[in-house]
């Protein structure tokens, strides 16, 4: 059974990584084969978060997708982005810095794909008005989105998986990942002028074109904006107050989504249209495949090997996880990677006596996987989405155009994350 579980997993993983088949087909097909061959069963696949589908992850994603589906209709994101571009007074560098910071902040609370879907059209508009190439701006924004998404539990799907497997809370992410992301964003902002040298020349006569944009027109329904703001506040209170309310983030998100749907009056097809059913099913298939590896003992064997390779030294394990995660997340989607690695890290953490060292293993996985998504054009879903938007707008971004910058930013972010983890969890703790 162990061999079958490994073979099915590897074949499905290769199919997902190479995109020879649709990733949903690979994940659900792999899960179906494992169920059909009796490697796992319905009890393990559907009723155990350790060996099957982690419904907390699936429903947290579902709830947040519905909330975002309503929120994006308010126009608030467009308002803020255009307001910022006007405050930049048409200076391309200032426009890039402000838009990347807005993207990073929004990504901490919305999923990265939604954030770039909202910011990219505004960016194209501003660049069009200024008569400058939007490609550097789009690349910078998607990178900021991948960095910013690492800041919170809900910012990036890998973080949701990590939180569910590790038991780390929304506040743990705020206390441990947010400071790292703030540092990363400061460094990222400082690097932007160098990374995109030669991209910041605009015709001064066109600056007025940006200043004449009317951001107030983006918000059509003020009541919807207020209702959405109030519900979002309640949802985040629920996330932050987990220790007080003892309500799981998935339940908070679902309750928030329900409340928003009831009070907003947005038509069903509009908010349900923003639910990515394929992604949710992909998660389900993936969890069953990884669960089969846990059930058959493959994951604990793998964790033993990693433990031996790092000679029981937590710092070495942290640095290994950080680096390997960054490299692999640039090559394969970071969601299946983290789904696979989470049980391994869980096993490793059990054998580490110091709790802060054990926690550092999880932060290394989060940082490596989230920041590693920047490495290549296919490292994160948001990268693929932005490249598609740019192509439709007549500004194609080649794989290498993206990857040349992506590798540099990934290297820098990992070089910043490594001393952060070392100092905070091994020197100062």
């Amino acid at each position, binding site marked *: 059974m162990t061999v079958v579980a490994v073979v099915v997993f590897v074949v499905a993983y290769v199919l997902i990584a190479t995109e020879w088949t649709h990733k949903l087909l690979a994940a659900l097909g792999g899960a179906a084969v494992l169920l059909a061959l009796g490697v796992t069963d319905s009890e393990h696949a559907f009723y155990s978060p350790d060996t099957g589908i982690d419904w907390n992850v699936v429903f947290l994603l579902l709830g947040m997708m519905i909330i975002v589906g309503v929120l994006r209709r308010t*126009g608030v994101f*467009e308002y803020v982005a*255009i307001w910022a571009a006007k405050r930049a007074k048409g200076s391309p560098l200032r426009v890039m810095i402000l838009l990347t910071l807005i993207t990073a902040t929004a990504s901490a609370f919305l999923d990265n794909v939604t954030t770039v*879907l*909202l910011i*990219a*059209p*505004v*960016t*194209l*508009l501003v660049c*069009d*008005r200024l008569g400058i190439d939007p490609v550097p701006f789009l690349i910078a924004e998607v990178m900021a989105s991948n960095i910013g998404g690492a800041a919170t539990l809900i910012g990036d799907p890998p973080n949701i998986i990590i939180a569910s497997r590790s038991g780390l809370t929304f506040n743990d992410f705020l206390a441990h990942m947010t400071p790292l992301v703030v540092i990363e964003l400061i460094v990222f902002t400082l690097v932007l002028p160098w990374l995109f040298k030669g991209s910041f020349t605009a015709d001064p006569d066109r600056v007025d*074109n940006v200043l*004449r*944009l*009317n*951001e107030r*027109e*983006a918000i*059509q329904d003020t009541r919807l904006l207020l209702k959405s703001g109030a519900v979002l506040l309640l949802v985040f209170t629920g996330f932050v107050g987990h220790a007080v309310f003892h309500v799981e983030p998935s339940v908070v998100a679902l309750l928030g989504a329900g409340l928003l749907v009831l009070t907003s009056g947005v038509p069903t097809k509009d908010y349900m249209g923003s639910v990515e059913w394929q992604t949710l099913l992909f998660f389900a298939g993936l969890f069953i495949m990884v669960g089969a590896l846990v059930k058959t003992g493959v994951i604990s064997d793998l964790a033993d090997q990693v433990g031996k390779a790092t000679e029981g030294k937590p710092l070495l394990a942290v640095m290994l996880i950080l680096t390997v995660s960054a490299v692999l997340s640039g090559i394969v989607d970071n969601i299946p990677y983290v789904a696979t690695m989470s049980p391994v890290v869980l096993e490793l953490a059990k054998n580490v006596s110091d709790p802060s060292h054990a926690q550092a293993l999880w932060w290394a996985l989060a940082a490596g996987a989230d920041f590693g998504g920047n490495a290549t054009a296919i490292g994160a879903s948001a990268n693929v989405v932005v490249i598609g*938007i740019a192509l*439709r*707008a*007549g500004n194609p971004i080649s794989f290498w155009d993206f990857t040349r910058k992506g590798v540099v930013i990934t290297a820098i972010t990992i070089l910043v994350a490594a001393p952060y983890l070392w100092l905070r969890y091994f020197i100062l703790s």
Partner: protein
Amino acid sequence: MAEDYPVVNLDTDAREAVELLASRRLPGLIVVDEKGKPHSVLPASQVVRFLVPSYVQDDPSLARVIDESLADQVADKLSGVTVRKLLPSEPLELPVVNHDDTVLEVAAIMARLRCPLVAVVKDKEIVGAITASRLLELVVAPH
């Protein structure tokens, strides 16, 4: 039932073609290739789609933030462009009927291709076109 209809070719200046559409209030234009054979139909709605920037198509709320004077500049996209560029990137099935096809056959083609205009050919040569309004006129005419 076919009527005389203006024809443009793939290398016709886009602004010229749009002016033709606008001045004669046409639902679309028949596009022919270098040999004068029917190539495609360019519906007016496709031209409108071309004029709308992709970022406004992705996020329609952005149309509201652009003021009138800036919005008026959308036609600038037509300068230096030919009809070939206005056509959809994915080739569409050519809406074409034979000169002796019935009203129902023409209506079926229009409905299936959602096209307001079909080219009418005889011996592979264009002899005219039928617009949706001409078709409806024939349908409701007393027999």
